[in-house]
Structures are given as structure tokens and as C-alpha cells.
């Protein structure tokens, strides 16, 4: 077990480009073991790009991304995954040519200690019923989101990157996903969450970083949320 005051993930001066466009301009933040940290910000602020840069799937990136004190910035995304980071992408990434079970079993185990299938079905009972379903993309949006989260819990990754897991879902499903995130935190997972919906984020997050124009411009803890509401409204334009 790492010292809880040593960051599990430490990002510093992260710059990223898509082709010619410079998207991230020196992003810096830390995520400590067992925390749920949320990146907030308007559309286009660079939240998703930050997750993708940590995972190693943007065109070009520089700076420093340290995971368990190992530098990830020069590594290919498959090596970063093998180090113990898993991504649940915004578009969910359910494969149409794979059935539900194949989708669930696709990500390889990178470390011991992942959840068993039974534990995943305890979190998402719907998935067990859908296991025989022919095509992963025939599931409802909520079920696809559960599948996208469920499949990375098997891998043994300790840091989960969740990109807008509540986007476009019904309130009752959002509640279930919130409950799942709290359960995962209790089980010792560390979660870096990207959210537009800060009311949802406030039900799960320990700390927040607010991004604007490819930088972190503000940070506060959940206990300071009320004191920061005005500033947040201004930054998020809500």
C-alpha cells in the first residue's frame, strides 16, 4: 500500500496537441490513493483531452504524468493500461461486433485483485440478465454505460478514468452510477471523474479541479463546495 500522502497520479505541466491545435497548456493536478477527484469545466476546456493524455491516446503530449512514481508520458497506451490505469471513454466504446459477454471480457487482466464477474453483477444486476444478448450496442444507454464501467473493474486497474459517465442518462440510472462510484471508492479504487454535471459530482467527489482553456484554474475540496458556488457558476457558466 502506498503512503496515502503520496499521489497515486501526479500530473505536471501537461501539454497536448491534436494535429496543429494546442489543446492543453500545462495542466497540473494530483490524485491521492482512494480519492474521487472530479475535473469540472465547460465544453472544450480540455477535460476529456486530459484523461486521454493520461491514458496516452492523444496525438502528441509533453510534460509529466507520474503513476505510482513511474513516468508514463513516453509510454504507449497499452503499456499505460498494463501499469494499472483504465479508461471508460465518453462515447462508452461498446463494440458492435462483440456480444455483451465478449465486451465484458475484452480488457485483459493487468494486475491481480480485479473484481470477479459475480462482484460486477452485484453492482450491475442488469448486466447478468443481458449476458446472452447478441450485440453490445443493442443495450440501452444506461446498460451500455454499466457495461463500459463493469468491464474495466475486472482488470485489476486501481485508477479508473471515468469520462462523463452520466451523460444522457435517466435520473434513476444516474443515481445507480453514483451509488456504484461510492461503492468502488469504499473498495479502494481511485477515481478521476470528468463531469459537466457538478450536482452529480458533488454526491461522489472528494475534491475538484476546474479547467478552462486547457489549464487548471481553480481547486477546492467537497467541504468547500458551498463557499465556491458563486465562483463555480461564473467558471462553468451555469
Amino acid at each position, binding site marked *: 500500500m502506498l503512503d496515502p500522502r503520496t499521489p497515486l497520479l501526479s500530473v505536471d505541466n501537461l501539454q497536448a496537441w491534436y494535429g496543429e491545435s494546442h489543446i492543453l497548456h500545462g495542466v497540473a493536478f494530483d490524485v491521492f490513493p482512494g480519492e474521487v477527484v472530479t475535473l469540472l469545466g465547460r465544453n472544450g476546456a480540455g477535460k476529456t483531452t486530459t484523461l486521454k493524455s493520461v491514458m496516452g491516446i492523444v496525438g502528441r503530449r509533453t510534460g509529466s504524468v507520474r503513476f505510482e512514481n513511474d513516468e508514463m508520458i513516453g509510454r504507449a*497506451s497499452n503499456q499505460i493500461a498494463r501499469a494499472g490505469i483504465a*479508461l471508460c471513454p465518453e462515447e462508452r466504446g461498446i463494440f458492435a461486433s462483440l456480444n455483451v459477454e465478449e465486451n465484458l471480457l475484452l480488457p485483459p487482466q493487468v494486475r491481480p485483485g480485479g473484481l470477479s464477474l459475480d462482484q460486477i453483477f452485484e453492482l450491475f444486476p442488469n448486466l447478468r440478465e443481458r449476458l446472452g444478448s447478441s450485440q453490445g450496442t443493442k443495450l440501452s444507454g444506461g446498460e451500455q454505460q454499466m457495461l463500459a464501467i463493469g468491464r474495466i473493474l475486472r482488470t485489476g486497474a486501481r485508477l479508473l478514468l471515468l469520462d462523463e459517465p452520466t451523460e444522457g442518462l435517466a435520473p434513476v440510472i444516474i443515481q445507480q452510477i453514483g451509488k456504484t462510484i461510492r461503492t468502488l471508492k469504499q473498495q479502494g479504487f481511485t477515481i478521476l471523474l470528468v463531469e459537466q454535471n457538478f450536482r452529480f459530482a458533488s454526491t461522489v467527489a472528494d475534491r475538484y479541479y476546474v479547467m478552462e482553456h486547457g489549464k487548471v484554474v481553480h481547486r477546492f475540496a467537497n467541504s468547500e463546495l458551498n463557499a465556491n458556488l458563486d465562483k463555480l457558476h461564473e467558471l462553468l457558466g451555469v
Partner: protein
Amino acid sequence: MFEIFGIPSQALFGQLLIGLINGSFYALLSLGLAVIFGMLNIINFSHGAQYMLGAFAAYFLLQVAGLNYWVALVVAPIAVGFTGVVIERLFLQWLYKLDHLYGLLLTFGLALIIEGVFRNYFGSSGLPYRVPDALQGGQNLGFMFLPNYRAWVIVFSVVVCFATWFLIERTRLGANLRAATENPTLVRAFGINVPRMITLTYGFGVGLAALAGVMAAPIYNVSPQMGSDLIIIVFAVVVIGGMGSIMGAILTGFGLGVIEGLTKVFFPEASNTVIFVIMAIVLLIRPSGLFGRGT
């Protein structure tokens, strides 16, 4: 002897057999093309040359090393598949982000070079390859005579085709392949080494072509242009079946072989063109092919 629609059974079943034999090679080759296209997005124009390399590998193994057909059946696909791995690492890996045309031109150029080199050293008359002893002779089925070797080719290609289908559509490894075809970036971000998988897929597809070449050696002569004679028809088969569909490639391959054979019996004048006529019709009605999933 009996007659069907005024055609003697010997002629009918004889052509049906030839159709099935041709169909076996169409299926094996279009299967390899489909596997390669699905994963690499490359139209492998050197597939015919690689089929020819398989036949020559069998020939060399016998002439130079004294290793028989059964050894060649294992060794030739592995050796030729390895040359595919080298080609992928040296050339193809730089082309994936470009238009299809570049991969097509590169593999077409490779095919011309390979065939040119072999024609230079071995001429174009063809070299004989003996049917293995265990498969000499044939069976008299009453309505026709079935050479043992031809029966073996049909049965073995069916087995290889369906084993490949099973591998891709029904196993964990195949699920990785299908997923990487759809979204290579995400599959890689799950920790799967997608570039290595692509290299091995090309090697596998090329190995399938070489396997077909070994099987063809005792039936046709081993000659430098044996691949280019066949590959045009195989591309028509792939277009009819639909690029990238595994089962489509297999069924269309056998189906068109049989149709071609039957055309030789009932309307011989059309036998050389029937596949291309079918291709034109399919392209008009279903541009993505009979089994294609659209674009």
C-alpha cells in the same frame, strides 16, 4: 451412367468437382484477403504472389531438402507468413493512415517484383509437383471417378476455412481482433498490443495464401504466374461476398466455384465470364456485397 437435363452424369459431376476444387482455392484466398482487409484496411494485391510463393516453397522443400508434401503443408505457410511479417514491419505499417490506394499500389508492386524474379529464374512453363503417395489413386463412386487428392483438397479447405471462422468469430483472441478492427485506439488503451496483433494478422493472412499454394501445387503446375491467373477471380469473389466478412468470403468462394463449374456444363461459352457478370449484378444491387456490413 445416367443423364440429368440431357447432360451425362460424368460431365456434370466432373465439372461440379472442378468447381468445388476451384471454389476451395477461391475460399481460402478470399478468406485471407478478408482477414487482412478487416484488420489492416489494406487490399493485399500481393496475395496471388504469396500463394505462388507457397507452391514454390513446397517445390523447394521437396527438391532441395527432400521434405515431403505433409512437411510443406506446415512449413511453407509459416515461412511465407514470416515474409509477410517482415513486409508489414518494413512497409505496410506506414500506410494505415493513408488512402487505400497506397496499400494497393505497394502490394501490387511487390507482386510484380516477386513474380518477375521467379519468372526470371524458373521461366513460365511450370514445374511438376507429385501428388503425395498417400493420396494417389481415386474412388469410383459409380456416377463419377473421384481422385483422392482432390477429395482431400476440398475436405481440408473446408476444415481450414471453418477453423479460421471459428477462431475469429468464437474465441477470445478473435474477439480482440474484431474489437481492434472497430476501435484500435480503445483496444490498445485496454492494454492489448494492437500493432503486434496487426503484424501477426498479416502474417496469418499471407500464411493462408501460402497454404492454398501448397495444396494447389500437385493440381496445377508450380509456376510464377499461377497467382496472377487466379487472383483476379478471387478479387471478384471478395467484391461479391463483401470486403471484411469472414463467412461471406468462405460461402461466396465455394458457391462461385460451383456456379462456374456448372456454367461450364450448361453454357460453356459463359464459363470464363460468369463470375464477373455476377459481380456486376451484385455491385448494382448490393454495392457492399452479399455479406457486407455496409461502409
